[in-house]
């Protein structure tokens, strides 16, 4: 400790320096236990992505093992110009937008209903969340077989019973083949509405009560309070729900794979990636498409993070 009496310079608050060797050793003593976890995380999450990135610039098709080599932006060009891929992009947008918007609206409605006290509210709230907790594949299977099936599905069964009341011949539509994308949207909306409801309910319950009372005294009707007070307050929660929902639905694979297997124009980007990889064995092009999905997700996620941080700023600014 030879430097202990040295006066620290102006503006520095650092403690007196120890010999650099000892300091490094103590720093590593702190870091070392974390290393296995870090290495594991890099191996599991980052290396595959780097590999995907590398492969996306390569000509690599399992059917043509002799032609493996560097391809430049060829794969990306093909992904963006291929009609199937462009359709997949469009399907993804359509699927994501409709699922997010419909589940937001439904979630808002349910949240408004649950935002008042009634007997058994806790039980109702828990049951409302249940669809979000079901494993996605299980949910998709449930919809495909238990609900949509034209022979024994619940929907057609309900139609049979309803029409039976009037002694008429019930229509028995094949839901999945007559409206494939809507069928997928419906099953995803069922899964995502609880999520939106939770976020919006949290927003509703953080609404300052005295502001609502002030508005009532100022002469606002319930509808005017909703449009002038509740909706502006919920704006950030709506954005948050929308963006988080978008991130997940953009990547959805389970529902598309299970319900339609990507047929009838329902193949979204993740499904197209899967097809290119496992059916066409074009690893280069599949990787390029995957990179495109990642870029799209990052763009949405950036907005999501911005919303989340603005929400926190608001809360702490109160």
């Amino acid at each position, binding site marked *: 400790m030879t430097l202990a009496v040295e006066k620290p310079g102006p503006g520095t608050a650092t403690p007196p320096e120890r010999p650099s060797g000892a300091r490094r050793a103590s720093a590593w003593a702190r870091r070392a236990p974390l290393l296995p976890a870090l290495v594991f995380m890099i191996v599991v999450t980052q290396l595959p992505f780097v590999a995907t990135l590398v492969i996306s610039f390569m000509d690599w098709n399992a059917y043509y093992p002799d032609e493996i080599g560097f391809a430049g932006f060829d794969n990306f060009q093909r992904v963006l110009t291929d009609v199937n891929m462009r359709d997949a992009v469009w399907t993804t947008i359509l699927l994501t937008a409709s699922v997010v918007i419909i589940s937001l609206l439904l979630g808002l409605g349910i949240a408004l209903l649950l935002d008042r006290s009634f007997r058994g509210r806790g039980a109702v709230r828990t049951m409302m969340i249940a669809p979000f907790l079901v494993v996605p594949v299980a949910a998709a299977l449930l919809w495909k077989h238990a609900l949509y099936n034209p022979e024994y599905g619940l929907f057609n069964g309900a139609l049979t019973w309803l029409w039976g009341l009037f002694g008429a011949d019930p229509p028995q539509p094949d839901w999945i083949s007559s409206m494939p994308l809507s069928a997928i949207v419906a099953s995803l909306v069922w899964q995502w509405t609880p999520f939106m409801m939770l976020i919006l309910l949290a927003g509703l319950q953080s609404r*300052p009560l*005295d*502001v609502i*009372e*002030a*508005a*009532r*005294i*100022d*002469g*606002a*009707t319930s509808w*005017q309070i909703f449009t*002038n*007070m509740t909706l*502006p*307050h919920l704006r950030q929660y709506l954005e948050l729900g929308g963006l988080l929902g978008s991130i997940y639905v953009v990547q959805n694979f389970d529902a598309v794979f299970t319900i339609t297997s990507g047929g009838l124009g329902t193949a979204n980007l993740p499904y197209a990636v899967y097809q290119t990889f496992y059916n066409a064995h074009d690893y280069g092009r599949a990787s390029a498409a995957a990179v495109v999905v990642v870029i799209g997700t990052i763009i949405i996620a950036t907005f999501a993070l911005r919303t989340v941080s603005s929400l926190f700023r608001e809360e702490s*600014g109160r």
Partner: protein
Amino acid sequence: MATVSYNKATRIYAGQERPAVNELDLQIGDGEFLVLVGPSGCGKSTSLRMLAGLEDVDRGQILIDQRDVTHLPPKSRDIAMVFQNYALYPHMTVYENMAFALKLRKTSKAEIDRRVKEAAQLLQLDEYLSRKPKALSGGQRQRVAMGRAIVREPQVFLMDEPLSNLDAKLRVQTRSQIATLQAKLGITTVYVTHDQVEAMTMGHRVAVMLDGVLQQCDTPRALYDTPQNVFVAGFIGSPAMNIKTVPLSEQGASFAQMILPMQREQIAAASSGGGKVTIGFRPEATDLVGPHEGGLPIVVDLVEDLGSDANVYGHAALDGGSERFVVRTDRRGMPSMGETVFIKPQPNHVHAFHATNGNRI
């Protein structure tokens, strides 16, 4: 501008035995500044919210300008309210906050503009009109809340502890501003506070409540001079009145070695109190006397030097128990801690209350 009447207005919360507000009878005159005061949970805020229409009235009636508003929604009562936390609309600018009620009433744009500008000038808010509440200080927010009430030009102003979130200096300043403003506008005002200094300085009349029951409603001076019961006596005045229950004798109350004389009717009224009477004397109506003048000796625990005068806190053994006393004295006679001083209430300023029911006699 209007009168306000509570006619036996009662509020009972679901699942509670005791009413939050119990048969409140109160007549408030046109242009009057009435302050509701009491400790927390006494029902003062509930009473105000009943008048605002934010709280149901379970029994009785509330009239504004002779019109029964008991079951009308808040918007049909023509009132404006200032909340404790101001309740400004967070996503609207100051201008929009003030204009909101007028906009809902479909007032013309020019008229809204005129009234908002006028109120902003009155409250020195001109330069903040385009700001959001978040960008304002506590005092400015408070003024916006006032402005929002003023532009309405309502029949009655309701204020629910509007100063409790301000710092001490600003509170005193705003206190006088509100009183001046109310005098200028002449609008009937009901003001709720737990601070008796606010109540005494602002109100034309002050209504003291306890446990949902109105204790006394009178001018500040009358409350101070003739409190109707022990609670009001102890609540009004700072430091609080010295209140002790002592034996009753034929000439009056026997307090330590002293006999505090009471009138014959008072003694007769006090006689049902089990041979006891409750007396009260204010710190400022108590003298420090010499050791041989028959005063009660007390040991000084604390001296608060207020600059102009001083509060002396002390205790004395009385009837086998240790009792606390406060005396206000001028600075020259100021004792020091641990010293023993002798106190003597000024006999013509002693209040007497019934020992069991606490009413003034």
